[in-house]
């Protein structure tokens, strides 16, 4: 029968490998992006953010790259661990104060094989 619902892009990696998760956006006016991690049964959890005046930002084991020319950002996870298995969303954050609003992308399911 016909399947219903969206199928998430998936990425399967071996423990210890590096992971790269990609996200494209369409609005040239977007200037602040956030990556969220969502583990099964939990809410989205903030990982790292980046503003459009930067093209790279590093955190602990994670790096976000922003290419404004092609409207693309990526999340790189170094030495991926089983605990990194989750759905990863990029989000476009706009406005400030009471007008702040997040718009999420579709998400990528990352599976880390031990």
């Amino acid at each position: 029968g016909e399947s219903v619902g969206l199928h998430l892009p998936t990425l399967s990696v071996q423990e210890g490998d590096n992971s790269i998760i990609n996200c494209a956006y369409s609005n040239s006016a977007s200037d602040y992006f956030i990556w969220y991690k969502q583990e099964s049964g939990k809410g989205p959890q903030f990982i790292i953010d980046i503003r459009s005046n930067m093209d790279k930002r590093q955190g602990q084991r994670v790096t976000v790259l922003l290419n404004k020319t092609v409207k693309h950002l990526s999340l790189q996870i170094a030495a991926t661990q089983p605990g990194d298995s989750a759905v990863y969303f990029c989000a476009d954050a706009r406005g400030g104060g009471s007008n702040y609003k997040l718009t999420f992308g579709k998400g990528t399911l990352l599976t880390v094989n031990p």
Partner: protein
Amino acid sequence: EPEVTQTPSHQVTQMGQEVILRCVPISNHLYFYWYRQILGQKVEFLVSFYNNEISEKSEIFDDQFSVERPDGSNFTLKIRSTKLEDSAMYFCASRKQNSPLHFGNGTRLTVT
């Protein structure tokens, strides 16, 4: 670390019934939000709330939905007459000025 807490974790209701989903945002946060995630789909904005009034709402947030901050700690989402298509995970989130959103772990609403 302070957390956004949501209750109940799972709510089952019959079509046409009213439900109230409850949230306790982080205590020093000023801005409050509800998001929805239908199974297998992306997280969608419903409504934002600040200074005891709605700041913005999406087209999903129709007259059947309402939000309230009845006291200094709780933030509720009410659905007056639930429909089957309201079945989803509902996430509450809060933030303070110049900070990212912090999400709760959600309430799974099942409408039968």
